[in-house]
């Protein structure tokens, strides 16, 4: 157990860093602090895992009030601010367009839960973000509907639509192996900042899909990044400047997950970690998520992902000096479980 002094020190540091990001926003997103700078300042990347064993009711449905409470607890632990509205003001620039990149690829049953999306939207609005400046998006309307969301393009309300409506850039960008990448216009043109809302899943090729892998949903042809277990495709894609700079905070949905057979919906391999995984360091987040899947696999007597030939190698690649996206070394991750 951590001492009170250590707890105060770490939460205060987290708040300070988020405050620095918010200050940078006032200068414009181009002046945003690079993640590496944040790492240099703290020495560790903070990851919060917040759990609520009673998140699902006896009917198997999520309790929306408990989801909101869990979100508040996670954000409070990350920022050090008990008042949710104050905490959110330090995370997002409230006068900008905030995107929420969800993941509905796996279809109904294993997609980012609408209850989490709604909870985030509620707090964003209370923090001062105008409803029309909140844009919930994914690849297609079908993906969004799989999350339980309703499509809306009304500029006066929370907007919910996919790249099938907004389209992709004609001009490709590249980084390393990620060549000919045509990015979603929602990312490049509409959002000033993106909150990443992936769902934790086992992945047939990549091993694990969570924070970084969710960015496959911002490109026109993600299948072109699948080679060699999506390594270095995932890391390279996240190094593309607009992805790296705009997608800055992850609120990962680990309320329901599949520990094998993913990324599609396999109810026979479904499990309910009842958790949210929150942080800025996408590598540290993915490392934490990976270990969570491995613990579950061990619990049910399954071999490790490496044992079945699909370790998520892209996580280490993302941490290497050529990518510098964050830390995968537990020594550099401050894991806070609440």
């Amino acid at each position, binding site marked *: 157990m951590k001492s009170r002094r250590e707890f105060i020190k770490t939460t205060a540091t987290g708040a300070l860093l988020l405050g620095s990001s918010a200050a940078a926003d006032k200068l414009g997103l181009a002046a945003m602090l690079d993640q590496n700078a944040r790492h240099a300042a703290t020495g560790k990347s903070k990851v919060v895992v917040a759990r609520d064993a009673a998140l699902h009711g006896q009917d198997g449905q999520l309790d929306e009030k408990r989801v909101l409470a869990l979100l508040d607890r996670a954000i409070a632990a990350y920022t050090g601010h008990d008042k949710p509205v104050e905490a959110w003001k330090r995370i997002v620039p409230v006068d900008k367009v905030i995107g929420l990149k969800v993941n509905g690829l796996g279809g109904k049953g294993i997609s980012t839960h609408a209850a989490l999306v709604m909870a985030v939207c509620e707090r964003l609005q209370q923090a001062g973000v105008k409803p029309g400046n909140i844009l919930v998006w994914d690849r297609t309307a079908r993906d969004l509907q799989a999350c339980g969301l309703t499509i809306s393009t009304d500029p006066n309300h929370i907007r919910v639509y996919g790249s099938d409506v907004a389209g992709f850039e004609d001009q490709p960008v590249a980084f390393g192996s990620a060549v000919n990448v045509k990015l979603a216009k929602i990312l490049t043109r509409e959002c000033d900042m993106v909150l990443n809302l992936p769902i934790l899943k086992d992945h047939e090729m990549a091993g694990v899909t969570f924070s970084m892998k969710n960015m496959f949903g911002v490109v026109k042809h993600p299948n072109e990044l699948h080679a060699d277990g999506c390594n270095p495709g995932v890391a390279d894609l996240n190094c593309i400047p607009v992805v790296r700079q705009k997608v800055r905070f992850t609120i990962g949905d680990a309320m329901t997950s599949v520990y094998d057979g993913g*990324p599609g919906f396999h109810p*026979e391999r479904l499990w309910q970690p009842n958790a949210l995984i929150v942080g800025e360091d996408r590598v540290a987040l993915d490392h934490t998520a990976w270990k969570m899947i491995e613990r579950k696999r061990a619990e049910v007597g399954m071999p490790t992902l490496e044992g079945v030939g699909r370790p998520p190698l892209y996580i280490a690649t993302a941490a290497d000096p050529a990518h510098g996206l964050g830390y995968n070394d537990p020594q550099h991750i401050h894991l806070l479980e609440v």
Partner: protein
Amino acid sequence: MIRSRIWIVATTAVVMVAATAGTGCKKHQFDPFPASGAVADWQKTSDTRTFAAKDLWQYIDGDAEQYISAGVVSTSTSDYKYQNQLEATVDVHTMGDAAGARKILETGTSDAKPIQLGDAGVAYAQSVIFRKGPYLVRIVAYESTPGTPQALLALAHGVEAKL
């Protein structure tokens, strides 16, 4: 005037021939999906979507490669609802041959319950998977109720009968 009538008759004949040919195509078109009510209490709630192997990532990105490596030719999918409550999705993968269908079915977990359906099949609490010739069928429900396994099995028999 006469020339005009001839033109109208000729055009009508061409349209009728084309329509007949079209109907003929539809009669022979592969449709393994039971219509609403064909299986008791099951309603077909979406149009059928079909993806060629090269486009399968658009439907099951990440999962597609295992089907491609097993020789999938195309995948068709449709949504269903049982008694207006239980939602389910039926995927019919047309593989290059029976070996490809067998390869996918064999990746199931050890807790699968074998069922007599098609050439081979297994059932779980919320899903049924079976193969018949080159076809691999996967039916998944999004809720687990006491009646789910039986309802899924009935729908699976309905699909199997159309293969």
